[in-house]
């Protein structure tokens, strides 16, 4: 378990440490080498500063596509395949800082760079993108090319090009122009910028922090990228880069104005969607399938609709209504369309038949809150033909409570869990009892199963049911020592658990910083938890406090992120 969590003084934190610690102890006693290893690895973090922090984060596919659109305008097709992303320490945003690009990945970037450049300088767009008219083959318009690369170089690299970068880009352009045309030269130079790791990766650089002698902070441009990717999931626009150049980002009032501007922009909604898609594991939707014979209502469109419904619910509550984050677990308000209406068996009004319409579940409807919506209930790519209480419980622990669940020991016999023909074990609860009675399994399944079993009245795609294989489903459980019956009651307990908002604080910080929170962040996180409560758990206030805090701009003191070199 991460140190930062154990540092926290909230009452829930001690309990959380105990639960996970208790499980690790069980595993140490009875499990194979896997658990022992992971426990040891966590106890002795080796060179956390270098392992945890990354100044080199690969743009994900959506960020790449959004960059192209923001910089060159809409309508440019981004072709080719991207290297697969990676989830590490609970977030794709952290995995982006642990991967590089394979040779076939570079092949794709090269192809993409050529096609995008050609589109940027195509006849229909050239007038707005190029600062001069198309030249003759022989004449290389140095001033025009320089203006063109300086402008797009700054937007692509998210900082001004260095003289040597500009020089080498102009060199390529000149060579290409000689053998072909001036525009071909611009195209080749632009392609070069698009293949550069300074575009494909977010390079974070640091400098000595004048406010903290001996400490380091991100450079203004690196900070600008952190802010815009957190709030928009997109690169800084020209205005934010100008603010960075003017030193505004180190002045709290002027920084505040930039943050307000970014949050007032429609792109903020996109940023919130991206963050929650990462936090809730939505990349798993990409390969999600359910068996058609068992779940005829499932389709890839239903999976898309389910995601969209939850994201709309989140945006509406947190961004539009500026509501309390905890209410996401209990709110009856959501959005409905025709497809989901059929799944939930609720009437959909005319607007919903055409697209999306606001919808309020009735007081006795077994729906209310994120966990009762189809996106959460169906998001299990490992089981196509049934629901898995263990996976659902694990999702709640890991995604919503930031409590990692250890992996199962390697030598488990699962047959009894699956044998649905055994009359003694008709429901998942009866089958999973076997795990809980086996000491090798009990520790971790005690973390996951009670939560998951109380969701069993919702099948693997989110449909409601009361029987499994003819036997009534028992959806009772206990959470944090409190008994409850059913998912609605569990959701209420989660709403009231201090671990729920604490997890959001931790995850949003880690998402922005691209690394797991460490001890040095503990003080800020503790203070942020208090401020979050005081502000009524408002997301905007949390994010505003984060991006304007020195903790967000802090760079690891140890040379993990180097100083910008004078040679440039």
């Amino acid at each position: 378990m991460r140190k930062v969590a154990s540092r926290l003084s909230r009452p829930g934190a001690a309990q959380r440490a105990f639960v996970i610690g208790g499980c690790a102890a069980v595993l140490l006693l009875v499990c194979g080498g896997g658990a022992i290893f992971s426990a040891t690895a966590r106890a002795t973090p080796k060179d956390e500063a270098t392992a945890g922090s990354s100044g080199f984060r690969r743009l994900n596919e959506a960020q790449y596509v959004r960059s192209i659109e923001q910089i060159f305008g809409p309508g440019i097709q981004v072709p080719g395949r991207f290297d697969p992303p990676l989830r590490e320490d609970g977030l794709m945003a952290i995995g982006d800082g642990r991967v590089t690009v394979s040779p076939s990945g570079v092949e794709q970037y090269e192809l993409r760079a050529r096609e995008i450049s050609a589109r940027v300088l195509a006849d229909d767009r050239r007038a707005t993108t190029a600062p001069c008219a198309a030249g003759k083959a022989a004449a290389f318009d140095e001033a025009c090319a320089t203006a063109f690369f300086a402008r797009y170089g700054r937007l692509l690299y998210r900082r001004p090009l260095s003289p040597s970068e500009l020089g080498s880009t102009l060199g390529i352009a000149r060579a290409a122009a000689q053998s072909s045309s001036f525009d071909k030269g611009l195209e080749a130079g632009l392609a070069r910028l698009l293949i550069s790791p300074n575009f494909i990766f977010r390079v974070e650089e640091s400098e000595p922090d004048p406010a903290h002698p001996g400490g380091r902070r991100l450079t203004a441009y690196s900070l600008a990228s952190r802010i815009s990717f957190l709030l928009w999931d997109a690169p800084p626009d020209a205005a934010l880069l100008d603010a960075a150049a003017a030193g505004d980002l180190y002045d709290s009032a002027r920084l505040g104005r930039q943050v307000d501007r970014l949050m007032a922009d429609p792109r903020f909604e996109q940023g919130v969607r991206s963050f929650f898609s990462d936090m809730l594991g939505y990349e798993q939707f990409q390969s999600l399938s359910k068996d058609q014979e068992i779940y005829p209502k499932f389709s890839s469109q239903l999976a898309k609709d389910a995601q969209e419904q939850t994201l709309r619910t989140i945006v509406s509550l947190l961004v539009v209504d500026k509501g309390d984050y905890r209410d996401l677990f209990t709110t009856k308000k959501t959005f409905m369309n025709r497809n989901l209406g059929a799944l939930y068996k609720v009437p959909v009004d005319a607007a919903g038949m055409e697209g999306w319409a606001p919808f309020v579940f009735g007081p006795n409807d077994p729906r209310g809150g994120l966990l009762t919506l189809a996106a959460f209930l169906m998001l299990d790519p490992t089981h196509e033909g049934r629901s898995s209480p263990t996976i659902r419980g694990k999702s709640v622990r890991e995604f919503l409570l930031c409590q990692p669940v250890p992996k199962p020991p390697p030598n488990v016999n699962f047959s009894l869990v699956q044998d649905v023909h055994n009359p003694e074990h008709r429901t998942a609860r009866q089958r999973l009892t076997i795990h809980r009675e086996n000491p090798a399994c009990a520790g971790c399944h005690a973390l996951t199963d009670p939560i998951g079993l109380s969701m069993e009245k919702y099948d693997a795609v989110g449909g409601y049911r009361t029987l499994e294989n003819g036997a009534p489903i028992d959806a009772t459980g206990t959470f944090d020592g409190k008994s409850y019956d059913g998912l609605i009651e569990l959701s209420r307990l989660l709403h009231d658990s201090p671990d729920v908002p604490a997890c959001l604080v931790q995850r949003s910080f880690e998402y922005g910083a691209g690394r797991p929170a460490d001890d040095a962040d503990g003080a800020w996180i503790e203070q942020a938890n208090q401020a979050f409560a005081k502000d009524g758990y408002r997301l905007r206030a949390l994010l505003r406090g984060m991006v304007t805090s020195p903790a967000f701009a802090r760079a690891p003191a140890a040379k993990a992120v180097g100083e910008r070199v004078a040679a440039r």
Partner: protein
Amino acid sequence: MADWTKRSLLRGFLGGAAVSVGLPLLDLFLDGNGQAMAATGAPIPTRFGTWFWGCGVNASRWFPSKTGHDYDLKEELKPIAPFKDKVSVFSNFNCVLDGKPNLVHWSGVMATLSGCAPLKGGVGGGSSELPTIDCLVADHMGHGARFRSLEVACTGDPAVSYSMRAGSTVNPSEVDPVNLYRRIFGSEFQDPNKAEFKPDPEIMLRRSVLSSVKEERDDLMRSLGAADRQRVDQYFTSVRQVEQQLGAMLEKPAPAEACLIPKAPPKMTLGAEWETAVATHEALAQLVVMALACNQTRVFNLALSMAGSNLRKEGEANSFHALTHEEPVDEKLGYQPKATFFMELSMSTFATMLKLMDGVKEGDGTLLDHSLVLATSESNFAKIHSVDSLPIMVAGRAGGKWKSGQHISGGGDPSSRVGLTIQQVLGMPTTTWGEGAMRATKPITEVMA
């Protein structure tokens, strides 16, 4: 079993994706030994590939009882019968953990392929401590070919790949035959047997662009920390490889007499439903085989599915992986019938790959004779994630340098001995390979000619 074979073959042909193989080679191009191209004097290149399937085997139905050339084929290995004299089977070669964790559905495959039991990973993938063998082989003999290696996977997920440089980045797989075709045989393909050749100035320009990007390396290395520098370095290594690929396209390709440019495959559904995956395998494998025959690459990696295999049957609640853990053993049969269906399916699918490779005539033999294909899975018995006696086969003869068609027992040695042997047979100056308990020092001399 025979049923699906016919069906998938039929699908392949009906789908229009089938390539007729077995073009007679004009003897006139061979020297007296039938080994080298008379026109160029260049020997027929040796190729290397990996073929991966998930979730292992039933040991008693898969491993032969008899060792040596006269080994017996048990039920699950029957599909390879037509190629038995070209396939070596290895038993009792282990993933030796020596205190490291058994990362389920990960340790076994990475130990065999990288020579080191990994420290991080599990059923969804993980990281590798050392580069996998295909990267080493490609470094050694991939130069000059247009692609250093080709990765393909058959269930629609590009993240399914067991080819990695050290770290967390996989060499992702092509999953769509249409895209793979475009990549290999699209507009950039140069027919090796065409008489005239003119280097394309467009390609020269593209190479200069990549070369110019490399100028940013030093600045980045100076401004980043140690862990990041390694990834920056890997990025530029990838850039260099693409640069070399373009360089190869600026030279007249050596003639490849077995090269037949296949027809573009039709758009097909992708996914983990088994008939879909097997049809995809056939379409991808045909393209890979022709890429080898046309000298577009010398190295390939093919994964039928991910290690925790999600292959499934329509209407069945559980995938292959879930079945291995949860399906009871049938008392009468002595195995899990539903899970075993997929194990047998994996072997029949491997046999399809062998058939395609053996159908391409080259010199006095076939493409398979000029290759080594390392086929393996991550588990022995997936139900309990056992990594002792991993199922391993090596098909082909490496142009006569590998004594094929034997069953060899390793007596509990690390499975990396197979990889060490392959490297030595391919002429690499590797004397020991791997790290820790997986470090191999002795090649398997029985297979070395």
